[in-house]
């Protein structure tokens, strides 16, 4: 082997080494931690005002002490995914199955422990004095009935039969707050004779602000 051959061999060795190192360069990133608390975190919940999968609400102010809300529960409860299939759920519901709609100032009214209430409770809650349209005058009878959860039957609540309407509302209490409820009626009519599945009349504050929350139970 002469000197030229030795140099050529060395060159081949170096070239080979260069090939090996040239393959590198591609990288695989490591797993990225999911962003958290990045500031703009707020968003909406898919709950439309006055709607729960087809429940709608319309309001009407009756007097300075009372307001009424009515609506339908006839929308299709969506039981399928976006592909339109129905593989997961067996439960179906229409307004004919019945249920209750309630309004309460309590953000988390305890329906499971609800008991009958009366007009006096309303006047106390609203701090109303006696008047022609106060609580004791409006809610009467001691025989209003409603059943929650299919098991909690209340039969001695004060009630109000709404004028021109097919609905009767009852007042109940969870020990701390009141709720105004009616049974869902698939063939009901509201105060002006229009079709509605529920109608509820609630007292409003003469001073200050009263916020009512809508609740529904579908049987």
């Amino acid at each position: 082997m002469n000197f030229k051959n030795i140099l050529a061999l060395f060159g081949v060795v170096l070239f080979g080494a260069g090939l090996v190192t040239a393959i590198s360069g591609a990288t695989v990133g490591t797993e990225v931690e999911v962003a958290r608390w990045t500031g703009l975190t707020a968003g909406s919940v898919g709950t439309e005002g006055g709607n729960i999968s087809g429940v709608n609400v319309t309001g009407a102010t009756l007097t300075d002490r009372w307001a009424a809300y009515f609506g339908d529960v006839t929308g299709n409860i969506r039981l399928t995914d976006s592909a339109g299939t129905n593989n997961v759920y067996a439960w179906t519901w229409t307004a004919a199955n019945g249920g209750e709609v309630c309004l309460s100032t309590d953000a988390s009214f305890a329906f499971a422990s609800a008991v009958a209430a009366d007009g006096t409770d309303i006047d106390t809650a609203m701090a109303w004095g006696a008047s022609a349209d106060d609580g004791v005058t409006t809610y009467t009878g001691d025989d209003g009935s409603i059943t929650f959860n299919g098991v909690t039957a209340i039969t001695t609540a004060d009630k109000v039969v709404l004028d021109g309407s097919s609905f009767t509302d009852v007042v109940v209490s969870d020990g701390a707050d009141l709720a105004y409820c009616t049974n869902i009626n698939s063939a009901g009519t509201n105060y002006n004779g229009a079709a509605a599945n529920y109608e509820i009349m609630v007292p409003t504050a003469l001073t200050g602000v009263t916020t009512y929350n809508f609740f529904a139970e579908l049987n």
Partner: protein
Amino acid sequence: MKLSIIALFMLTLLTMSFAEDMVAINSMDGRDVLSGVFYANAKGIPVKFMPVPGGNADVFAAKVGQNHDILLIQGSLPVSSFVESALANKNNTITIYSSADGGSTNLDLAKKSGAASFIVVDSAYSDSAISVMPYAAKIKAYVLLANKDNIAQIKEIIGSKKVIIYGLVDQQVKDDLSSLNPEIIGKGEDKYEDNVVIASRMMREFSISRALVVDGSFVEDAMTAGDQPIILSGRLVPQVTYDFIKQSVRDNKLGGVMLVGNDLVVPIYDMRERMKAEFAGEGLNKTFGITVKFAQVIPSAGTGVLTLDTFRMPTYKPELEILETVYNKNSGTLMVSVDNPGEGAAYYTLEVKVTVDGASYRTFGTDGVKLVERGETQGNEFPLDLSGIPEGKVNATVLLKYGSFKKSLEEYTSYEGQLATISYTDNSNVSVQQARYDPARKSVLVTIKNNGGDVAYVFSKLSVVYGGSPTNISSVGVRELAPGSMVVEEFPLEMTPEELAANKNASVFIDYGGRQGFLLKKSEYVVPLQSEGEFPLILVGVAVLFVLVILAAAYFFMRKPSKKK
């Protein structure tokens, strides 16, 4: 001067005498919202937060009311810049707490709260904070959002007071608080498991027979009230949650649940119907109530019907898709590929039903729960013989249930449609070329080659002895290799000289195939683990050899003339 001193004294007195009777929160940072709720609940005063979206300062002020002494927590990015003036117009006295950073605010309000006990949760996501929110309110504890960076401060804040650690937290958080003898609630392995533990505890300790059921991605007034436990669920009710609710109903300890919004209406009602049927099968007549809170209204303000006041929190939601459902007549299999475009790994099961002319023909299911990594597409094959059945009459229904925990599949997606037929044979050919350790990158680099003439997909795993024991490391995802191309897969791994000495060879496992998701071919290669550190030694050796050869040659040429002389 005297006047200034008196003014300062009066101001100090005024500050000292201010005792808020309500907390209001106006911030886009969810940590401010949570911290404000925790602070108010620890002090036993009401709290209101500006909802997003739909936050209107006037409506907010109307709900807050008048003549309050309000601590207004205002974030560096408020929801509305009119909140303070709207509250002031209602004759409220306002003290502003400016929150520059949600993490610091959580700790600062902890000190101000005067709480006698604390609950520590992980700061990463809101699930844990929401789970403990009502229990903390009941026992008037403040909830600390902890991580390894702030645990020293948290330990100082807790001092000698009682502390509970809930759910999954950083190990350093546990270690640093261990000297305080904390009570541990939840194993930290499954958020739904931990959630039912705290919900059960609250129901038992405070004799509560109702609960809220939410998905944990937002807060709403019913949740911040703290008067009933919060049960987490997804669009599928996790088994542990189902079992807990059923047992509670069986024992007459749960009379009703409340849903916030309509997202969980169908799964929870469906769950109740299933339970009723199961109880009936046992001869029992048991059920529970479901109430849905769906809207709000302020009659006197003439607002009309409003959406519920909610604030969305950061939470991890797994996301899987059914990418492909086909029948491969060459292999006689039904192929279903599942893609994970989400932000983390997810577990899943598949249920497949094949119908012919509308009649059930075959039903398949995955064998147990499977894991699919983030960014991975995973193929599933089921033996299916459709010979003799004309295409077009065959339909497939695929139900993919998935979740972030193995035991809790809380989400689902499905596909239903005509089953397409393909003719496909996997001719892919992939091999491992070499493996070498790069000390500069602190990584093992594995070279993989597609020897075939078609595109191939490969997922690789490296097996080495690390830290004294055999260790497997997976590549981050599946690689696509063009025909005849090579790719270098990097496995981040810092190895000591001793570990390099213990790994003369490395095992590389590859799963590959010619169809995305269907990596059905598997090979193991044992290749020498080269080290970058060895490479210069070779060069030095060659160089030394080269110098010796030069010297020898020089000596040879120098000797020749002298011989001629």
